[in-house]
């Protein structure tokens, strides 16, 4: 009996290895399928909820619904946007053109807060912190607001919050002298910078509720 088993060892080992491989592949396939199924079930559950959400919202839509939203407002959307444009323009001008030294910088928050609120004024203030410049004078990095554009997205009728995008570009003052002692004046000494601010503006409360900033580069002007 022992001899018979001994003589078939290669066949037995081959069978065990092959069987093992089949089982392993099957287990891996099953586990992969289960994870894909679980994710699909999660997606399906989420999508069903979302579909119901949009269907319910869609049923509420009508010409009258929007007309009521427009006429029942006790504030003037156009006037609010106009006033917001002016306040933003003023805040950026004060920040990037009128803040020249440490004294101006220290007074900045009190000038900006009534225009754009304390949080956004902190954001603007952080862009013009005075530092020691190459010519040995401590001053703010920018002297000119070169471009400022403010644009509005779609007004959310239920929250009355409107997304706003602000593009601003600014440049440093021209520096007459360089560290090499060579006196030059021109484009080379002007540092340019730009950024895009994304803001959520609450039209009812007339204040900025959220914002983000992304530094940008200009391709063509």
């Amino acid at each position, binding site marked *: 009996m022992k001899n018979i088993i001994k003589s078939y060892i290669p066949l037995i080992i081959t069978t065990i290895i092959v069987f093992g491989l089949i089982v392993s592949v099957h287990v891996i396939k099953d586990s992969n399928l289960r994870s894909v*199924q679980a994710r*699909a079930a999660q997606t399906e559950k989420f999508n069903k909820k979302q*579909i119901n959400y949009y269907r319910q919202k869609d049923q509420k839509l009508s010409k009258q619904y929007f007309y009521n939203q427009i*006429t029942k407002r006790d504030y003037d959307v156009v006037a609010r*946007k106009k006033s917001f444009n002016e306040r933003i323009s003023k805040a950026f001008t004060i920040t990037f053109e009128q803040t020249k030294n440490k004294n101006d910088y220290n007074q900045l928050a009190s000038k900006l807060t009534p225009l754009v609120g304390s949080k956004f004024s902190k954001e603007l203030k952080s862009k013009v912190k005075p530092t020691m410049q190459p010519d040995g004078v401590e001053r703010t990095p920018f002297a000119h607001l070169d471009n400022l*554009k403010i644009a509005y997205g779609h007004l959310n009728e239920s929250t009355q919050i409107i997304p706003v995008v602000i593009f601003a570009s600014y440049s440093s003052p021209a520096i007459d002298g360089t560290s090499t002692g060579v006196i030059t004046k021109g484009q080379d000494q002007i540092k340019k910078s730009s950024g895009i601010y994304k803001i959520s503006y609450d039209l009812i409360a007339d204040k900025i509720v959220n914002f983000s900033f992304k530094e940008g580069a200009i391709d*063509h002007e």
Partner: protein
Amino acid sequence: MSKKAKILEVICCVVVILLGFFAIKHNIQQGAQEVNHVRCLEKKSNTKLQQEKNKYYKNYKKYKSLAAQKAYLNKDQKVRDYYKDFTEDQLIRKRSRQFFSIYLSWSNSRDYLQRAHKLDKIITPQLAQDKNIFDNGKDVTGHNIIKNLGLHSRLNDLTIYSNNQMSSNKIALIKVVQESWRQDENPGLSNSFYLLQINSDALVDQVIRLK
């Protein structure tokens, strides 16, 4: 063990290996089919959600536009101002969509060079001749990049922010998602902001790309 038995054993081993190979192959194919089936269902579900979203936003725009038109007849000045503001914004949005659907869509260098011509009804002649905006698709050495690389592009998505109050020029800041690819490659997405300036006739006056 006799020679015959040895041969028989080798044959048995080969048969076991072959059976195992086919069993594993079948298992893998079946697994792939099942995964594909589940993914298909998932895709179907996502498409259904997207269709529902599109339907909602289409109706949202339709009814809001109808309501704004009705606001034109309202006695309240602020309501009538809203109508004017809304209508001007709609025009800026329409022009922006028209501009980018052509400006960022080409499948060969001929298309690329014809973009200014295709847009001539909505852009000023100065802009059409601006080589920074409508370049010839060649690099500094004179090689035709569009043709040599088989470069394709199309507009994937755009979010429009507009303002008609800042000056005589209306402006739009537009977040654009561009889909571009080389021949035989999968499309890749890139995001950028564009600034469009639109004059009183709603003609695109100036285009600035903000990376």
